[in-house]
């Protein structure tokens, strides 16, 4: 095998509107199997919906937010949703809930809310930044 590679993975397509979270998860699993590292996962634009704690698909469908959460926790990979994208689209953590006096929060652990600086840092630190977009 060639030398181990570090990836930053950016997901911009939402589950149940695109295949992006699915393809990205398959890729991420195979990358780890090949001995590579995933530095971080960054959700941008409509991709932030993957971090919803309230998504409730029918029980016979794959639950992409849960599948991603479990993968991130098992592999101890940090993951963040872009704060500007997330606030507009109603994906909120407890800090933002308090700041904006909202009735609830709905961010699924281990996702965090972070600025685009996390993405810039990923670009700099990782050997590759890979994007998984919506199909539209």
């Amino acid at each position, binding site marked *: 095998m060639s030398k181990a590679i570090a990836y930053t993975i950016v997901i911009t397509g939402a589950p*149940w*509107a*695109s*295949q992006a979270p*699915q*393809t990205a998860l*398959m890729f991420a699993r195979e990358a780890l199997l090949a001995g590579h590292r995933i530095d971080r996962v960054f959700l941008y634009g409509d991709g932030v919906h993957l971090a919803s704690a309230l998504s409730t698909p029918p029980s*016979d*469908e*794959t639950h992409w937010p849960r599948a991603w959460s479990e993968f991130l926790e098992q592999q101890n990979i940090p993951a963040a949703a872009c704060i500007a994208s997330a606030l507009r689209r109603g994906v909120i953590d407890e800090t933002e809930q308090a700041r904006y006096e909202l009735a609830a929060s709905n961010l699924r652990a281990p996702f965090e809310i972070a600025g685009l600086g996390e993405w810039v840092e990923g670009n700099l630190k990782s050997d590759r930044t890979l994007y998984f977009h*919506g*199909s*539209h």
Partner: protein
Amino acid sequence: MNTLIVVDQPPYGSWAGREALDMVFSLAAFDQPSALLFVGPGVNWLRSNQAPSGINQKSVEKNLSAAPMFGVEAILADRSACERFGLTEATLVAGVTLTDSVPDTLDGYRHVAFAG
């Protein structure tokens, strides 16, 4: 009040086609005359032998084949789109009626809607 639900998005990459199917099944459940029309890359919903287990999705082939039983009056597809995507009688699912004129097909329905 007959309704035509049009699908122009390809399968699996987005949810629009599934949500179009839900619409037409819902019309049928309330005894409203309804049909499906597949155009553009949407015709790829009609290819037989779809095997989406590798992408962890469910096939809609079964749902489509059950459509007439549930009261959906027709499954229509634009012939030129089928030809463009290499869909022949051998590869189309059963029960599809090909149309040579999308405008004429649309004229036959009081309501025409996309899922998204």
